[in-house]
């Protein structure tokens, strides 16, 4: 089998790349190793309304709930409210990822991409010069070589494409948040707000979240920084949190997952290979959100792929415009947020409490994450000295 581009992984990054390339007339094959695109979910499903709308026209069926804002809770219970249009990247819509991911894949299919499920990439095919010549796949138990001019790795946290191409994407324990999440029915759920709870006891180096999905359903989960994790800690801590804080909650689904929080990696292109989304470690190190960055990277990679194929230069140098584009757009924020994550994951509960207290007299309801940090630094110049250059 032959095509122009083979995309490995049918999440938001892969589907956006596949769709954009197919729309430009390229022959695209997208592989998904699972039987079902989008399932099981590994995501809290929150996404900014304006962010999503800037990338696509959302189908109402993708959206489980709309929220009005976010509440942040310090370890001692001090609370701060951020309104929806300002609370950064991650709230506004709470998606139904199972439907959303399939919707994006369907758009790619409608644009002309061929999608193959239950098809897992085993390795790269190699050209005589050693560069990628496509992928060797296992489709429904049978080996299928798929020759292509270009391979796009959109294969998520467990990515192999980059590593096969000589890009070391392995994550250090301090650069992954390991998470557990229950979908709960709980009369205590506030259907209008996403909630974030901080504390080194409840979620070391991470946070507990509650993202409403409508009618008292919510994604209730937590992330623990890998370097501070013990075997099984995320599930154990989540159960404990539920017992202590949500006695009425009824669990109807359980998922686990790892979120890259490594910040920008050294490179995301090699000869005839590009990485997008979680496989390129483009998720946000402070919020853990990855959907929008993945979609944006998918579009950028798709655009660059079309040009590189028509120019006939698919070397790493020819694909470099993708690397440059994502670094000067989403990459800047990812890099800044990595520094913030490094800082905040070191803070004690007392530090977190005192930072939250310092803002109690301020009106934060109209502030985004950046504005909030500005105020924080102004109010706590000594404590936050090392962050002074991150907020411009």
């Amino acid at each position, binding site marked *: 089998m032959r095509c122009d581009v083979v995309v490995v992984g049918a999440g938001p990054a892969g589907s956006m790349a596949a769709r954009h390339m197919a729309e430009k007339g390229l022959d695209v094959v997208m592989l998904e*190793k699972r039987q079902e695109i989008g399932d099981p979910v590994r995501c809290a499903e929150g996404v900014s309304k304006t962010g999503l709308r800037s990338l696509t026209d959302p189908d109402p069926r993708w959206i489980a709930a709309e929220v009005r804002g976010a509440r942040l809770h310090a370890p001692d219970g001090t609370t701060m409210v951020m309104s929806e249009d300002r609370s950064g990247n991650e709230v506004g819509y709470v998606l139904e990822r199972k439907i959303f991911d399939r919707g994006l894949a369907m758009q790619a299919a409608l644009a002309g991409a061929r999608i193959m499920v239950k098809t897992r990439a085993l390795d790269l095919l190699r050209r005589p010069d050693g560069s990628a010549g496509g992928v060797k796949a296992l489709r429904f138990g049978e080996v299928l070589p798929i020759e292509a001019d270009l391979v796009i790795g959109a294969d998520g*946290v467990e990515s192999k494409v980059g*590593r096969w191409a000589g890009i070391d994407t392995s994550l250090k324990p301090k650069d992954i948040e390991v998470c*557990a999440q229950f979908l709960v029915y709980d009369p205590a759920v506030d259907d209008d707000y996403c909630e974030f709870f901080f504390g080194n006891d409840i979620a070391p180096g991470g946070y507990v979240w509650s993202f409403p999905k409508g009618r008292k359903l919510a994604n209730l989960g937590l992330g623990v920084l890998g370097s501070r994790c013990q*075997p099984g800690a995320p599930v154990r801590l989540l159960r404990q949190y539920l017992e202590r804080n949500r006695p009425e909650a009824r669990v109807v689904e359980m998922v686990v997952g*790892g979120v890259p929080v490594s910040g920008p990696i050294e490179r995301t292109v090699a000869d005839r290979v590009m990485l997008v989304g979680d496989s390129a470690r483009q998720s946000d190190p402070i919020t853990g959100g990855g959907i929008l960055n993945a979609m944006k990277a998918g579009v950028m990679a798709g655009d660059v792929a079309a040009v590189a194929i028509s120019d006939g230069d698919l070397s790493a140098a020819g694909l470099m415009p993708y690397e440059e584009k994502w670094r000067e757009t989403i990459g800047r924020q990812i890099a800044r947020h990595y520094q913030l994550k490094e800082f905040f994951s070191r803070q004690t509960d007392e530090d977190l409490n005192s930072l939250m207290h310092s803002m109690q007299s301020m009106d934060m309801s109209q502030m985004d994450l950046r504005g909030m940090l500005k105020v924080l630094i102004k109010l706590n110049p000594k404590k936050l000295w090392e962050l002074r250059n991150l907020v411009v």
Partner: protein
Amino acid sequence: MLTVDRYRCGYCGACVGVCPEMALELVETWIEISPECVECGRCTKICPTGALELSDKTEART
């Protein structure tokens, strides 16, 4: 030797992401361990469900 309790595993692939040797692979709903494993213990530490274990036992891999 590294073993995975597939009845405990949530097949999320976090272990695959931290493996420095590419010794793990998430296939459908289970984790496969290849002989490249150097028993560094990164995956056991970060597994959200605690499904991976390093032991001296030489039982068959499950």
